């Protein structure tokens, strides 16, 4: 199908983008990579009156280390993350996750910030940002505010971003030497949205894991942390008994939601499969 008619503006300053967004109100949409938006326009699921193309706004670009944080600009593409040495060194989880995002032609355009702001519970970056305890840097008419990933994802496709605000960047604590990471998703075709996925981090001392974060995605209306399973694992030597307990806890605590092809029971089962694989991987 073809998109309905709309106007198009391409500001170069963040302040201009914010003014256009305010003027446009509900009928305006920001476009960065547009890899979700263009599909919804083509199918006429969305009919904005104006697209505000923010890809020339310099403040939204680039990956850098600022103090003890890795700063990833909202406009950074999935490919840039996939190919970045800074990301590989300071946020290996993102490096591991990137190849799972759609396909290269889509990763070349789709952006970090777009994925976070869209808040798709099946997407990789919301889950990763939650796992890495990222902070969202947001600009709006009243200036800058920061919010943790934990408080950013509210519900299905719903974040705490206000309609007149723009996600500028994300700050992620740098990976430490004893941290280990795991990312995996189960999909029908490589690059499709996951039926279920797991993004995990832990501090490893010998075969003991501490400060674990296990975030499951594509199983609920937001990415969701398996807190009870984390408590089971923290401070323990990982063996079959601990794995079985953690799997049971994760399946118990996460209220999985069915999608069009997979039942809630199937997703609950896969949560355990992923966690078992993840724990075995983390202690190797």
């Amino acid at each position, binding site marked *: *199908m*073809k*998109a*309905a*008619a*709309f*106007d*198009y503006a*391409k500001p170069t300053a963040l302040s201009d983008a914010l003014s256009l967004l305010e003027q446009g109100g509900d009928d305006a949409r920001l*476009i960065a990579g*547009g*890899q979700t938006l*263009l*599909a919804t*326009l*083509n*199918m006429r699921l969305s009919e904005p*009156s*104006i*697209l505000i*193309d923010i*890809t020339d706004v310099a403040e939204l670009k680039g990956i850098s280390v600022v103090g003890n944080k890795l700063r990833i600009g909202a406009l950074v593409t999935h*490919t840039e993350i996939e190919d970045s040495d800074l990301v590989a060194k300071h946020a290996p989880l993102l490096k591991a996750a990137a*190849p799972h995002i*759609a*396909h*290269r*032609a*889509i990763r*070349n*355009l789709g952006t970090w910030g777009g994925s976070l702001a869209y808040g798709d519970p099946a997407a990789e970056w919301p889950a990763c940002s939650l796992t890495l305890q990222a902070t969202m840097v947001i600009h709006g008419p009243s200036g800058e505010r920061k919010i943790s990933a934990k408080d950013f994802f509210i519900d299905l496709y719903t974040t705490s971003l206000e309609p007149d605000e723009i996600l500028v960047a994300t700050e992620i604590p740098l990976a430490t030497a004893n941290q280990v990471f795991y990312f995996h998703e189960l999909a029908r*075709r*490589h*690059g499709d949205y996951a039926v279920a996925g797991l993004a995990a981090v832990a501090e490893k001392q010998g075969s003991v894991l501490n400060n674990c974060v296990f975030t499951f995605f594509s199983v609920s209306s937001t990415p969701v942390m398996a807190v009870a399973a984390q408590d089971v694992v923290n401070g323990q030597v990982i063996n079959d008994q601990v794995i079985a307990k953690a799997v049971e806890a994760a399946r118990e605590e996460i209220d999985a939601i069915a999608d069009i092809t997979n039942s809630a029971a199937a997703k609950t089962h896969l949560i355990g499969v992923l966690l078992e694989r993840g724990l075995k991987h983390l202690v190797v």
Partner: protein
Amino acid sequence: MSLKKKVSMTVNGVTVNAEIEPRRHLVDFLREDLHLKGPHLGCEQGACGACTVKVDGQIIRGCLFLTVQADGSVVETVEGLTKSGALADLQESFMRHNAMQCGFCSSGMLLAAAELIEKQPKASREEVREWISGNYCRCTGYHAIVDAIVDVLEARAKGQKIKPVVAHA
């Protein structure tokens, strides 16, 4: 509301100026306005990869990219890349393996494969399959397509060229 925007871009080495509606995606512009029939439209939602073209040196989905977004860019389609010889060994290999069937998906497959060979010259057969999974072949020609790409990777690694199936005049 101004419905048309002026754009200027380089398409297959030629400067193109046009006035187009912002809603017009790049492949419609290439096909309908510039009469380039290499990029195809399949699903128009990013799933099939038939619309794959290169913008500023990297492959993109031409159905998920607006012509206005290409203003100031360098756009390359299978026509331009065939002429430049950039895809020559892949095209020979596709012919050698009969890796095209109806040919509808071939232009997208070739462009996707070319980026794989550039970015991951040591890709395994499994990685070729994962990479090319973004492009649908409705005739299920995948096996021959993967064979063709793997042959080019192996030939490149050995510094060899793919031998033509038919001798060129």
